[in-house]
């Protein structure tokens, strides 16, 4: 796949805190690249450098093979940025907001009116275009925030947690819109705290922690590569009679957690040992109520890689 953006060895520190520690990656044309990482991992710093609002101390960013600092205007012309914070004029109508921001990209006259209408229709706000932004719900403002970023038809759209604090209906609308933007030819760079969003829209994922890329790939390849284990979750009565050491003696058992009436056992994939686990439980006169098998999810992949949950 063609690389539209190439990031090479980005480094950035805030006083003693090293926010980015030599990050390098490519953004391929037409993909939805999700940047994942806990708070303070370096996602926003990366995004801010990509938008040119922030300067890295070392490293380069190339757009179609040329350093963005040398072609800043052309590069910015191709970007559409949806900042995490709502960047709208609340006293103005939705239409006036989109019109203003599109005009900054040189769109004018009849073309401006057409593109403003298209953007508002796209985010489902066309029928409210004359209303002031301050009268909108949180979800509608988020959608308007997106409309302001896409009216000039950018090739690359960067969305920094665009669904924070909104209702499920607006979230679904936004996720559907993002997939549609990709189908229309845009390249998307997306950061979020919501793993289910990544599962739904990403074509590739980069996991960042402590300013470094710790994993990269499609969601399937990440799960495949990193999830060598599976988990049995056993609900049972009388778990107080169980000694963890009894289960650790079974081949393939990596970890045992006792959570009240629930036993969570991590085992190496490919080793059939459920019968032995059950035998031990029966031998201890523990009554088994339910057994479930949990395959790796992105959440568990993330947890394993970073040792933290995404919202830590």
């Amino acid at each position, binding site marked *: 796949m063609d690389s539209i953006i190439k990031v090479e060895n980005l480094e950035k520190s805030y006083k003693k805190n090293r926010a980015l520690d030599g990050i390098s990656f490519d953004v391929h044309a037409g993909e939805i690249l999700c940047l994942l990482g806990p708070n303070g991992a370096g996602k926003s710093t990366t995004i801010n450098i990509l938008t040119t609002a*922030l300067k890295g101390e070392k490293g380069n960013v190339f757009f179609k093979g040329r350093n963005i600092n040398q072609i800043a205007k052309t590069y910015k012309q191709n970007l559409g940025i949806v*900042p995490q914070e709502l960047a709208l004029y609340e006293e103005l109508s939705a239409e006036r907001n989109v019109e*203003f921001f599109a005009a*900054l990209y*040189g769109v004018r006259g009849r073309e401006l009116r057409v593109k403003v209408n298209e953007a508002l229709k796209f985010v489902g706000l066309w029928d409210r275009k004359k209303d002031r932004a301050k009268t909108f719900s949180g979800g509608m403002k988020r959608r308007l925030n997106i409309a302001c970023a896409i009216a000039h038809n950018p090739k690359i759209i960067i969305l920094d947690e665009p669904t924070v604090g909104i209702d499920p209906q607006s979230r679904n609308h936004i996720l559907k819109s993002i997939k549609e933007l990709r189908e229309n030819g845009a390249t998307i760079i997306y950061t979020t705290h919501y793993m289910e969003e990544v599962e739904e829209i990403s074509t590739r994922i980069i996991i960042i922690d402590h300013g470094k890329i710790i994993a990269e790939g499609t969601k399937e390849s990440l799960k495949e590569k990193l999830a060598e284990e599976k988990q049995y979750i056993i609900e049972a009565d009388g778990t107080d009679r169980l000694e963890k050491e009894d289960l650790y003696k079974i081949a393939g058992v990596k970890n045992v957690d006792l959570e009240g009436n629930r036993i969570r056992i991590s085992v190496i994939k490919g080793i059939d040992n459920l019968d032995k686990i059950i035998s031990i439980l029966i031998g201890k006169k523990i009554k088994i109520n339910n057994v479930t098998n949990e395959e790796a999810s992105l959440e568990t992949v993330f947890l394993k890689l970073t040792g933290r949950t995404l919202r830590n």
Partner: protein
Amino acid sequence: MRQFFIILKMDLLNLAKSFVLVQYNTLFPIALILILGFLCQGDYGGGGVSSYDYYGVTMLLFTVLNVSVSSANSFMEKSIKSSNLRIVFSPVRTSFIYISKIVATFLFTSLCYIAVIIFCNLVLGVNFGGTAIGCVILLILLLDLMSSAMGVLFCCLFKSEEGASQLLSMMNNIFGVLGGLFFQIDGFGKTVSIISYISPAKWVLEGIMRVIYDNDLSFVLPISVIFLVLTAVFAFGCRLTFRTEDYV
């Protein structure tokens, strides 16, 4: 340049839509002139200068000094600041952001003060120099321009509207007192009189009073040049201190 005018138009619109700023730059000076003019009626009158004549000029200058607070507000008020972020992202010169705020505040407040001058002259009979009113307006507007630039510079330095506004308000009050805008301070001795010249309000008040009552225009050009130079220095300071990093 087209983009500059697009941003300028938006900044003007935002200022005009701010009820607080419209009120502060029109009704507030009129209220001050009316109150102080009425309360101090007995202290003036000799030599044909009424309390309304004196406070008509001084209170106008005091609110013009405080234009720096309006420009700080127009630049980094919370909702405006986040919208400025999009301008940072767009392919326009970053200098357009702060220059536009200076120009927009200047244009908006100029209109407000010209309206106040017309009202005070026609309704309250405040003397603005008769045929020399153009020179008086010129000095007031140049002070306005300098204040606009100063407010934006303070925002660039302090990175927030709150910090900038607090310091500017304090400075403006000190300049106001030293400039003799509330009461004459020349009577406090020679030292105080010399110190008072650090206040731009003092220079402009002196220049305006000379124009109105002595028909002496000798201060107009030097004061105009000083204000223009200071404006240029403040704008250059914005260029040196404005960092897009402060927005993200």
